[in-house]
């Protein structure tokens, strides 16, 4: 194996490769294309994956929604059909009793489910919009983009029941001229003056808020709309290492006890759990990644087989040359070594070229997309180890496939090789 490290060996190989330009190029194209596709597919899959994940991260994957419905089983003297009203007491009870909970945020709303919307007035314009009463933690669960200069509701707003509001982008567009200052100005909601502290835009589709709602501090909302301790629903995020499905069961058991609901009553409390939805998407992404790998690896193998094929033809073409070399004293090992090194070198260079071009394309796509939210591709990259692994395996494949033409070259007797016309 010593000959691998000798300069002369490589000069021989370089000579053979350089002088057989067309076959070198054809050979290289096969593998370059394979690696290029592999890198590109992997990168795009990763980009799609990243994009999905970033959307769900905004929505805190371990999250559930919980609201009161009507009982379906009579219990402890109460007849069925009793309406469940969640209150702040429930929130406090859950917070103190369930360790799994990372965040818990009671929410209240008017303008949804038959309640009257809030009357929004600015100057001579007015309109009716949904009004939410929220804690700052809600922003951790369902992320909103707050435009420059503004902020979301904070703990101080809650504590002092401040009359401040965050309005949707759509409301801003309806009620304000372009470039008009919005932050710090006053608007009227149901006849009460509020200071605008921010304008938001939802960063993902879905949810109740849309881009035309008004957010008030929860405490302020309760007072203004006369809600006392009643809430509309609550949003609960479990700790990262907890399973939200289990947490949901625990929470419902506690609530049933607190509200004197029959343990088997599945109708009393409604819930929606993102965990299951995300599992589906994860399954889809995993499947896509698997397909990417299969297609990529198949392409690589096809490329390497092409190399073996071309080298085999080349050996046939070079039979005479090989015969001459052997007449001049080349041992079978030297001939075999040379053909195999040619194969390895070609696959390696071609692989490197494919990797570089694939990476450049991904980089180009990344730059072109930028932070455009409309295209579901985010930061398309390839895992370094995946690439090194791919390179190593094609070099290995190149070695194995190189064995065939090398053996063929050696199996021809020099006399037959020389006789070949």
């Amino acid at each position, binding site marked *: 194996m010593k000959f691998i490290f000798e300069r*002369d060996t490589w*000069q021989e190989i370089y*000579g053979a490769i350089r002088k057989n330009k067309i076959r070198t190029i054809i050979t290289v194209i096969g593998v370059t294309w394979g690696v290029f596709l592999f890198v590109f597919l992997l990168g795009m899959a990763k980009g799609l994956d990243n994009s999905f994940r970033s959307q769900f991260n905004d929505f805190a994957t371990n999250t559930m929604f919980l609201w009161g419905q009507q009982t379906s089983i009579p219990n402890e003297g109460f007849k069925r059909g009793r309406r469940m009203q969640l209150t702040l007491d429930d929130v406090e009870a859950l917070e103190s009793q369930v360790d799994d909970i990372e965040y818990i945020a009671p929410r209240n709303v008017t303008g949804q489910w038959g309640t009257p919307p809030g009357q929004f007035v600015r100057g001579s314009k007015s309109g009716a919009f949904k009004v939410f009463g929220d804690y700052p933690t809600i922003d951790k669960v369902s992320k909103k983009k707050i435009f420059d200069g503004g902020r979301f509701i904070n703990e101080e707003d809650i504590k002092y029941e401040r009359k401040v509001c965050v309005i949707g982008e759509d409301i801003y567009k309806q009620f304000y001229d372009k470039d008009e200052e919005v932050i710090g100005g006053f608007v009227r909601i149901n006849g009460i003056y509020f200071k605008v502290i921010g304008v938001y835009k939802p960063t993902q589709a879905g949810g109740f808020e849309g881009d035309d709602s008004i957010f008030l501090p929860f405490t302020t909302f309760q007072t203004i709309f006369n809600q006392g301790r009643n809430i509309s629903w609550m949003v609960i995020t479990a700790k990262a290492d907890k399973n939200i499905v289990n947490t949901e069961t625990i929470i419902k058991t506690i609530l049933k006890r607190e509200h004197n609901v029959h343990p088997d009553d599945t109708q009393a409390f409604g819930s929606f759990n993102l965990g299951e939805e995300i599992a589906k998407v994860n399954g889809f992404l995993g499947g896509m990644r698997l397909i990417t790998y299969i297609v990529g690896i198949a392409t690589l193998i096809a490329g390497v087989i092409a190399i073996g094929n071309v080298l085999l033809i080349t050996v046939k073409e070079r039979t005479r040359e090989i*015969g001459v*070399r052997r*007449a*001049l*004293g080349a041992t079978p090992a030297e001939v075999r070594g040379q053909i195999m090194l040619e194969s390895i070198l070609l696959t390696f260079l071609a692989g490197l070229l494919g990797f570089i071009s694939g990476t450049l394309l991904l980089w180009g796509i990344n730059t072109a997309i930028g932070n455009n939210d409309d295209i579901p591709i985010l930061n398309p990259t390839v895992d370094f180890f995946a690439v090194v692994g791919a390179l190593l395996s094609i070099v290995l494949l190149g070695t194995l496939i190189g064995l065939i033409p090398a053996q063929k070259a050696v199996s021809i007797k020099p006399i037959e090789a020389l006789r070949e016309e």
Partner: protein
Amino acid sequence: MIEIKDLHKSYQMGSNSLHVLKGINFSVKEGELVAIMGSSGSGKSTLLNILGMLDEADGGSYFLDNVPIKGLNETKAAQYRNKFLGFVFQSFNLINYKTALENVALPLYYQRKNRKERTEKAMNYLGKVGLTNWATHLPSELSGGQKQRVAIARALAADPKVLLADEPTGALDSTTSYEVMDIIQGINDEGKTILVVTHEQDIANMCKRIVHLKDGVIVEDKEVEQVRASQYV
């Protein structure tokens, strides 16, 4: 230098066996210039291939420089070829993507000589065949005579004991043939043992000894008065 006793060789042609060499006894001393003559099918190329270790005899013994040549594996044969023998072929067999210089240096590469020594020696032998100025040319840029001179330089480069030439002038016109023979005679004058297979009488006459092969046996083996090729050039 070469000692052959009772050499036999047959080829299987389908179900028939073709007995090509039927007991050749033959020896060559150092410094001889021997022409092996015979019509096609007389077995002269087969003999040369066996001498060149490109083929193996079925029976008999072959000593080259007192080394028995028998049952060699390919690796050993390659090493012996490199050490003992220089080949000149009818169709030159230069490697077409290598320059004249690189072609001449190739046997030295297989002798593991370093690059500097290879280039030096190769240039030296190219000078011997008068092609110093053509060193960087590819075979496709050379005439037939020049190609054969490059091939001779290549055969000499490894400083072999014996030079084996298989119809070296077969693809050349007579003027060029004589030029090539002139070079071969020059090398022989310096003491190199050379075997030339040919079917041309005038080429054979330029050697010192003529061995006639017919139907696989030697029918005539005589010393001749050497005709110098230089008088025709």
